[in-house]
């Protein structure tokens, strides 16, 4: 595992399952968010601190490829990493596996940086440093 990756473990809740007995496909996006939040925290700055400093991320694209379903009470492992940082946007990559290491889902999300008024902005230097370097760069 490279240092840029973040591991999140969670247990499938009953509320996340559907009539087919498997996790409804929309919930993987929520798991991706859990992975993203942990990645921010691991880099030394919680996403809420990020917003408090005036940098918000809006999702512009979500992609999920489903290989195998997850089921109730199963422990799943989400691996998250940043795959691209551009001047105004960032892309996260995700992989979800079960406890037997079988691949369940892969995906990515693209985000654009906006200010508190929702206007697109260049990712501030301190945040770029965190996203690219992994070193705390809090002003």
């Amino acid at each position: 595992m490279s240092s840029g990756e973040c591991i999140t473990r969670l247990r499938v809740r009953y509320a996340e399952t559907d009539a087919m007995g498997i996790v409804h496909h929309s919930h993987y996006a929520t798991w991706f968010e859990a992975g993203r939040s942990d990645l921010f925290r691991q880099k030394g700055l919680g996403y809420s601190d990020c917003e408090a400093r005036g940098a918000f991320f809006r999702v512009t694209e979500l992609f999920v490829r489903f290989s195998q379903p997850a089921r109730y009470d199963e422990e799943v492992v989400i691996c998250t990493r940043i795959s691209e940082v551009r001047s105004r946007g960032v892309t996260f990559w995700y992989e979800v596996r079960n406890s037997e290491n079988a691949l369940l889902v892969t995906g990515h999300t693209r985000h654009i940086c906006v200010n508190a008024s929702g206007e697109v902005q260049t990712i501030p230097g301190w945040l770029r440093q965190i996203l690219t370097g992994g070193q705390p760069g809090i002003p």
Partner: protein
Amino acid sequence: MTPARISESALRVRYAETDAQGIVYYANYFVWFEVGRVNYLREIGFDFRWREQEGVTFVIAEARCKYRASARFDDRIGVRTWVSQVKQRSFVFSYEVRNQDTVALLAEGETVQVVVDAKTFKPITIPPELRRQLLGEGRLPP
């Protein structure tokens, strides 16, 4: 392919669908796509009952959404759904989500469905009558 059929679904944003940014949380668009998809499938007769009877169902293999603008609580939303591709064992739904009052495009997306045996969940060739239906050539027999 030019869609032979487009299904239009209307919904209103529920408060539970919004997040701390005051906009609809991104995962909910997959649920809206599902509303459009289920309505489309009902309209062509590929409903839950038909699937149980014939032992044919489908699973989602891929889903994607591109977000163009935000939706907010109580907005009136329209979801347009159509079949954009039919292959041997899979087919693609395309979706367009608009604000019904401003007509602004909010999101576009696709889901890839793999047709499977309802018992084994193994992929199967799309049955001919279903294929015709997905291509817009008539309704499935009841």
